C-alpha cells in the first residue's frame, strides 16, 4: 500500500503561522527570510524564557560595566596625577561592584547558597568564570578605594594600603577588562535566539557601553580640569558601542528583529540616540562648562543602562515567540538537505 502525502496543509491544523503575517514589515525593508510556513505547537515557546529578574541582571550588566570602566579610569588618573578623578573613579568602582554583588545574590533562587558559586571552577560555565573574575576584581578594587578613605582604615594598615594602591589600581583595570566583557559571553552562551546569534559583536557592545558609561560618570563627578581623558574615552567607547551594535543588528536578520522592533527595539534606538547626544555634548561642550559636563555625563550613564536593559529585553522577546527559535533552525535543516 502506498500513501500519498497531501499537498499543503491548511494553516489552522498545523498550528503554523506565516512569517510575514502580523509582523508589520515596513515598506522597503529587506526580506531577511524566505517566505515559508513554520509550524509550532499551539504557538508555545520552544526554549524557556530566562528566569532572571530584569532589574537584577540587566542592572548588573550595567553596574558591572561601570565597575570595570571606572577602575580603568581610576588607574589612568592615578598614573597621570589626577587626584580628584582618581578618587571619584575608585569610589564609584567599589560602589558599582557592591551594587552588582547585591543584585547577583538577590537574583538567586536560594540567596543563602551564594557561596556555592565558588564551590568549583568550571571553564564551561561563563557564570563560574565570572564569579571567580568578580572575586579577583574585588580585592584590588577594595584596596584602591580604601586608599581614598584613609580615615576608615586602622592606623597600622594605612602605609600598607598606600604602598599597594597604585599596583591595585592597575590590577583592577586589567581584571576589569574581563569583568566588562565576560558578561557578553554569559548571556550569549544560552539558547536564547537573539543573544546566542549575537555573540561575535556582544563583547564589543558591552566594552563600548562600559567605557562610555563610566566616562560619563567621570564627567558628572570630577572637575572639568581633570576630565580630558574621560571625554576622549567617552568618544572612543561610544564609537565602539554604536558601531558594534549597528553591525549586530544588521548581520542578524530575523533574530536581530528584537533589537530593531518591539519595545526592546525602541529602547535600543532611544539608547543609541542618548549615547549620540551624550558623546556630542561631551566632545563639544563639556570642557567649557560644568553644567554641560554634568548633562553630557548623565546622558552617557543613562544610555549605558538603557542599552543593557534593551539587550536583555530583546533576548526575552526572542524566547517568547517560537518563530525565532524554529525558523532559523528550519532554514538550516532545509539548507543541509539541499547540499
Amino acid at each position, binding site marked *: 500500500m502506498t500513501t500519498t502525502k497531501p499537498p499543503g496543509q491548511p494553516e489552522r*491544523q498545523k498550528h503554523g503561522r506565516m512569517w510575514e503575517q502580523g509582523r508589520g514589515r515596513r515598506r522597503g525593508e529587506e526580506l531577511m527570510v524566505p517566505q515559508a510556513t513554520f509550524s509550532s505547537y499551539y504557538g508555545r*515557546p520552544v526554549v*524557556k*524564557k530566562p528566569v532572571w529578574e530584569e532589574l537584577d541582571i540587566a542592572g548588573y550588566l550595567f553596574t558591572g560595566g561601570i565597575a570595570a570602566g571606572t577602575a*580603568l579610569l581610576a588607574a589612568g588618573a592615578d598614573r597621570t596625577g589626577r587626584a580628584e578623578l582618581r578618587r571619584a573613579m575608585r569610589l564609584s568602582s567599589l560602589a558599582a561592584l557592591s551594587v552588582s554583588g547585591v543584585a547577583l545574590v538577590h537574583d538567586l533562587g536560594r540567596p543563602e547558597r*551564594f557561596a556555592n558559586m565558588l564551590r568549583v571552577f568550571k571553564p564551561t*560555565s561563563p557564570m563560574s568564570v565570572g564569579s571567580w573574575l568578580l572575586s579577583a576584581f574585588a580585592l584590588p578594587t577594595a584596596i584602591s578605594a580604601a586608599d581614598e578613605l584613609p580615615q576608615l582604615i586602622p592606623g597600622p594598615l594605612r602605609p600598607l594600603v598606600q604602598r599597594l594602591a597604585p599596583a591595585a589600581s592597575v590590577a583592577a*583595570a586589567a581584571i576589569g577588562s574581563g569583568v566588562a566583557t565576560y558578561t557578553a*559571553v554569559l548571556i550569549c552562551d544560552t539558547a536564547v535566539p537573539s543573544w546566542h546569534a549575537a555573540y561575535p559583536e556582544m563583547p564589543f557592545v558591552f566594552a563600548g557601553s562600559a567605557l562610555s558609561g563610566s566616562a560619563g560618570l567621570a564627567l558628572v563627578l570630577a572637575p572639568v580640569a581633570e576630565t580630558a581623558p574621560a571625554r576622549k574615552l567617552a568618544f572612543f567607547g561610544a564609537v565602539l558601542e554604536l558601531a558594534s551594535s549597528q553591525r549586530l543588528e544588521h548581520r542578524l536578520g530575523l533574530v536581530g528583529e528584537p533589537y530593531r522592533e518591539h519595545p526592546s527595539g525602541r529602547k535600543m534606538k532611544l539608547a543609541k540616540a542618548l549615547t549620540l547626544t551624550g558623546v556630542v555634548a561631551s566632545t563639544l561642550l563639556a570642557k567649557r562648562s560644568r553644567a554641560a559636563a554634568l548633562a553630557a555625563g548623565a546622558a552617557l550613564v543613562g544610555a549605558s543602562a538603557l542599552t543593557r536593559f534593551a539587550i536583555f529585553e530583546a533576548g526575552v522577546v526572542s524566547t517568547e515567540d517560537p518563530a525565532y527559535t524554529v525558523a532559523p533552525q528550519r532554514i538550516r535543516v532545509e539548507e543541509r538537505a539541499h547540499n
Partner: protein
Amino acid sequence: MSRLSGPEHDVARDAGYDEAPPRMGFFTDTSICIGCKACEVACKEWNGVPDDGYNLLGMSFDNTGMLGANSWRHVAFIEQSKPVGQQESPREGVRWLMASDVCKHCTHAGCLDVCPTGSLFRTEFGTVVVQEDICNGCGYCVPACPYGVIDRRPDDGRVWKCTLCYDRIGDGLEPACAKACPTDSIQFGPLDELRERAHDRVDELVSAGVTEARLYGDSPDDGVGGAGAFFLLLDEPEVYGLPPDPVVPTRDLVSMWKHAAAAAGVFLGLGLAAFGGRNRR
C-alpha cells in the same frame, strides 16, 4: 578537557568515570502512544513532583502545556486533517498525534555545561541530574537548554527536571514513566540497543506505508551530540513543540571567549589611548 560538541562515544568515561555501566536512555515511539498520560502521573507519583494547578489550556487534551519544573513528562496532543490508514482523502481533525516528551539527557548538555555550582552532573549512566542540595537557583541552566526542558520552581527557588529515575535505575528498575506506559511507547534500556531497535521500527513503519516516520535525537552527529532520550515522530519536530535543529550553546564557547578577549584588549587599549597622547593633563 572534554569536547564541547560533536559525537562522543563514552559520555560517562568522558565525565571521569573509570568504569561505568552502559549509557541508558529512553526511546519514545510516538506512533504507538495513546495519550493516556500514565507516564505523567507515574512520574509525579514516584518523584513527588508537585502539581501545577488545574489548568484548562484549550490545546486538545493537553492541559500540561510543556515540560517544566513540575512536569517532567509531557504528553502533546495534535489534531490534524490528514488521511489515516486506508483513507483516500483527509478528514477534518481526524489524525491524532500523541507524544510523550521528556528531558533529552544530551551528550553535550547545555544545562550541565553552564551550571556554575556543579549541581548538575553526569551520572554513571550517562544521564544528567540536578543535585538539589547544591543548586542555588542561579537559573543559568534554564535558558541554556535548547529544548526548554529545565525550569525553576518559583516557590522553591531551585531548578528541577527529569532524573531518568536515577534512584530506580541504580537499583535495576526501569524509570516510572516507562514502567507505567501501557503500550511500550516509552522504552528504557541501553542507548545502543534502543537506537538499533528504533531504526528497525522506522524501517518497519516505512515499509508499511507510514513514510512520514522518522527518528529525532538519535544521531550522534546532531547539535547536541545525540540525545539520551530520543523519539520516533510522525511529523516535523516543531509540530510537537520540539526544535528542528537544536544546538548546545556551548558549542561556540571557545569562539565566544576569543571575541571577549579581543574586546577586553580593545577596552584596555582605548583606556591607554585616552590617557596617553599629547596632553598629559
